[in-house]
């Protein structure tokens, strides 16, 4: 189907305000009379609070309110486990845990007030290591949770033991990932304004304005979700990290207590030590193979570091456990997972939702397998990839799939065969693939209104012919709402520049789950597409009356309603709306497909799935271990590209973010204290680190997606870590990076390890 808008390159719709510095981020929001909110955070990884005295702080002139366990109800909250409180009660469980909060006239006073809060701690032994935490005599992070095990599961599917018995070859590996932060440049913050009727307005850089009310604000504050009007300010990056934002709770609680507006801005340091960074995991893999490279089965054991509180971590662990099994035709699998509490910052979701970690481990393992079987790593993958129409071992239904095309692209563009034939002298190539959901039905149970994963949209055309789209799905800067505008523009025949999509607002917008799980283009896009079709119909019906031509003989072209047969007979869309005396609206709702998984985690969690393959060429300094990524080459299957410029931006941004994670990032906990507390100890890629990236899209035209589109944000990041590690393996003649990041020191150790193995 030929398209006018879809598939072409467009700037994001709010680019002008962004490049001119006019965008109002949360810290730029002015609330007259707002107090400054600040938190007192635990200095200890693990300690009992013996006494907490806020009297001096309360007496300090300029202090409006001091909140702590002393004057707030015990209202535990949490998405999976109710293991978290607004303020620490009997114990602090990580460095950064909120002990108290103040609202004061200015930052200086607030800071002084914090210094006047006296906390007497009994320091307890720190549980920092997830393996030591499982020992029988280990201290307990939560006194009621034996063995520090937050979650545990064990699944066997497809005759795994027989698969291993019958295998021609088996392989085993272990991999460890590190604690890494989303590291958006905008520190997190929220503002709140209490109103005399008891309702509270909240603003913040949030990924989901709807969900924060239902899983955090409402339950903790003893109010109904409807008591809050939550408005998104454009996030300065989020990447998963701005989904469960405790700053919203702090601001709202302080505002209610002070009966004044409060702004609660976190410093970068607070953000790094007290948000929800990407979960570190320890993954053991065993796989069974036929001699020709056919996968026969796999065993996975996962120990996932929960940190002090759970939030979405159980779901992340599931994702790590199951996901890669669906990328290849996997006849049998055994999966064990343990989620372990420690006295470290609670881990959480970051772009990939566990799949970055899982893909790193499995795709690294695959190259070891290829090596062992004497097969080319690309060929091994091509032999085993899932295909359209497959139902995976776990029940995933593959509705569209172009991963093989993506891999062939990488192989061709990188001159793979020639480069693989060389290697071993400090230069090499590697590749890796991934599968990802476009929305996840599991969240609908944990977070949603019921067991649906819905999105809805309203499209409103005004008398000037301008169109505003209301969707509950938020833009995090990735251009998600621009995608909605392009879809609606395509449907309605109205030029893109007449569209506006305001930031999400629970006050007037229809429900949406928010930005996560690569769900917006598919689910939000479908809802908006339906709404746009409705609006178009309503426009044509109105015009039909005014123009005295049947609606089905009219069309909308470039913002004009005109007779198909006689294009000179036309009205502008604005004129049509004007004559109706009202706005013209369209409504749409779309429910995601797929299933809620059963107790054995069987089922089809997403409507459809996206794929990608990343290839990397690296140079390794064999004496220092310094790795330089010379080029990255990728192929992505996003179903259909809606906005080419935005899609390319997702890929390039995902690749560099993934490379950065792989090579230089890390909060670097040491005995419970994080060492990456600023942007010179927590490193992210600079412009100097960005490699040349070549990439293309392989459009599988998904049957469920709007114009065939599915998610792209996360397939853009998942495989790059393994691609780099596999390239290092190739370049060094066998240095396998089993623990991230790929730091020079780690690489050098791996080179020496490989050398020792080769000589022994």
């Amino acid at each position: 189907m030929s398209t006018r808008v879809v598939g072409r390159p467009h700037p994001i719709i709010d680019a002008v305000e962004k490049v001119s510095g006019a965008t109002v981020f949360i810290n730029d929001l002015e609330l007259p009379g707002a107090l400054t909110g600040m938190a007192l955070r635990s200095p200890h990884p693990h300690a009992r609070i013996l006494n907490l005295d806020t009297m001096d702080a309360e007496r300090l002139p300029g202090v409006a309110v001091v909140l702590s366990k002393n004057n707030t109800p015990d209202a535990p909250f949490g998405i999976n486990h109710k293991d978290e409180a607004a303020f620490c009660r009997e114990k602090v469980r990580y460095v950064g845990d909120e002990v108290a909060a103040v609202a004061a006239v200015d930052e200086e006073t607030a800071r002084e007030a914090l210094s006047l809060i006296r906390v007497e701690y009994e320091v307890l032994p720190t549980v920092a290591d997830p393996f030591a935490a499982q020992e029988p005599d280990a201290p307990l992070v939560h006194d009621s949770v034996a063995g520090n095990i937050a979650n545990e599961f064990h699944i066997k599917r497809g005759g795994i033991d027989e698969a291993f018995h019958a295998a021609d070859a088996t392989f085993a590996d272990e991999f460890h990932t590190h604690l890494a932060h989303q590291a958006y440049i905008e520190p997190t913050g929220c503002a709140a304004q209490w109103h005399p009727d008891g309702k509270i307005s909240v603003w913040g850089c949030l990924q989901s304005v709807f969900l924060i009310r239902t899983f955090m604000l409402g339950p903790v504050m003893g109010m109904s979700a409807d008591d809050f009007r939550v408005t998104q300010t454009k996030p300065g990056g989020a990447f998963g990290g701005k989904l469960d934002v405790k700053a919203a709770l702090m601001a709202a609680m302080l505002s209610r207590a002070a009966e004044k507006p409060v702004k609660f801005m976190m410093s970068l340091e607070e953000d790094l030590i007290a948000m929800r960074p990407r979960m570190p995991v320890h993954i053991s893999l065993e796989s069974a193979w036929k001699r020709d490279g056919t996968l026969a089965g796999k065993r996975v054991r996962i120990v996932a570091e929960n940190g002090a509180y759970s939030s979405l971590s159980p779901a992340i662990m599931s994702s790590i456990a199951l996901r890669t099994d669906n990328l290849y035709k996997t006849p049998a699998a055994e999966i064990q997972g343990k989620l372990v509490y420690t006295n470290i910052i609670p881990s959480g979701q970051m772009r990939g939702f566990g799949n970055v970690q899982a893909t790193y481990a499995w795709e690294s393992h695959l190259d070891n397998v290829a090596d062992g079987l004497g097969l080319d790593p690309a060929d091994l993958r091509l032999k085993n990839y899932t295909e359209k129409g497959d139902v995976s071992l776990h029940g995933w239904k593959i509705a569209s799939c172009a991963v093989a095309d993506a891999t062939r692209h990488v192989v061709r563009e990188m001159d793979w065969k020639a480069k693989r034939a060389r290697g071993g002298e400090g230069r090499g190539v590697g590749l890796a693939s991934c599968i990802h959901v476009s929305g996840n039905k599991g969240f609908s149970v944990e977070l949603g209104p019921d067991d649906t994963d819905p999105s809805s949209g309203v499209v409103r055309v005004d008398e000037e012919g301008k169109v505003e789209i209301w969707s509950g799905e938020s833009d995090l800067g990735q251009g998600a709402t621009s995608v909605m505008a392009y879809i609606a523009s395509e449907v309605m025949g109205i030029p893109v520049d007449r569209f506006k999509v305001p930031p999400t607002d629970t006050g007037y917008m229809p429900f949406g789950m928010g930005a996560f799980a690569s769900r917006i283009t598919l689910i939000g896009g479908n809802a908006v597409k339906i709404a746009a079709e409705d609006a178009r119909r309503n426009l044509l019906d109105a015009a039909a009356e005014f123009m005295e031509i049947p609606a089905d003989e009219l069309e909308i072209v470039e913002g004009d309603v005109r007779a198909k047969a006689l294009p000179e007979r036309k009205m502008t869309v604005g004129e049509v709306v004007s004559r109706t005396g009202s706005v013209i609206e369209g409504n749409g709702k779309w429910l995601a497909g797929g299933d809620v998984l059963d107790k054995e985690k069987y089922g089809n969690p997403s409507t459809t799935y996206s794929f990608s393959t990343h290839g990397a060429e690296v140079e390794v300094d064999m004496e220092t271990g310094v790795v330089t990524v010379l080029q990255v080459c990728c192929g992505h299957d996003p179903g259909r590209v809606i906005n080419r410029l935005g899609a390319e931006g997702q890929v390039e941004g995902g690749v560099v973010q993934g490379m950065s994670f792989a090579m230089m990032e890390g909060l670097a906990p040491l005995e419970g204290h994080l060492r990456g507390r600023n942007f010179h100890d927590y490193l992210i890629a600079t412009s100097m680190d960005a490699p040349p990236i070549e990439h293309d899209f392989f459009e599988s035209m998904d049957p469920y997606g709007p114009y065939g589109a599915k998610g792209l944000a996360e397939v853009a990041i998942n495989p790059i870590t393994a691609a780099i590690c596999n390239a290092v393996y190739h370049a060094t003649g066998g240095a396998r990076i089993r623990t991230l990041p790929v730091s020079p020191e780690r690489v050098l150790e791996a080179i020496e390890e490989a050398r020792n193995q080769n000589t022994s």
Partner: protein
Amino acid sequence: MEFLRAASVDEALAAARDGAAFVAGGTNLVPDVLFGRKKISRAVDISRLDELRYIEEADGKIRIGALATVTDLLDSDLIRTAASPLHESALEFAGPLVRNRASVAGNLMDASPAADLAPPLLAQDAIVELVSVEGERALPLSEFFLDYRKTAVRPEELVTAIVIDPLGAEDRCAYYKLQLRRAMAIAVVGVAVVLRMNRGVCAEAVIGLGAVAAIPYRAHAAEAHLRGKEIGEVEIESAAAAAADSAQPIDDVRASASYRRKMCGVLVRRMLRKAMGMPQTVAV
């Protein structure tokens, strides 16, 4: 905190007293004050003292005014040709936004073990010129750093210039900064070597090392293996081993002590080979 802008060096010195600090580029001091890492009662702003901002050749020396910025180093032909390790270190120094403010003296006064400019300045026998109301004095940079974040500069003293010996046509040199990303990074190891050659013999060898001890320092023991010698494989291997031996690094968020020590040897060897135009033992 009191703030005072000095209109002259004399005014700056008069304002210096206990608890006061000079602020020039501010790239270290300002965040240190903001985050409470340093408490100062008075900031004496010397950033407008243009008389301290110059790079010039005089009496066979290169004189670098205390307030010359790192960008000034990069823009200077004199530095590029007659102090190339310093030029290269400036190229690897933070990013342009910081380089535009950070002064040469400030980088030394911050006394970070990883101060980027210290190894190349050490390697060119830098002398630090100081002034106070008591008078002037000069101090070799090798005696400037006393201990972790501690210098020989007295509270009321101001660095006015850094003086180095330019590289001659025969002299050999090399610089390397091992870092975890390609810009805006604190050095894991910094190495600068300068070999003053006379008819094929190394008349003087100076090796400046950064981030492998509490202070940037000269690897005297390593230098001794080179001085007075015709430099070949044996001398280089001995010097590299001595440099690694001399290191007293720590474990930190960037690297372990053992890696740093090892790299100290690897990089000194590499830089000596590079300076001498010898092929590397491993492709670099």
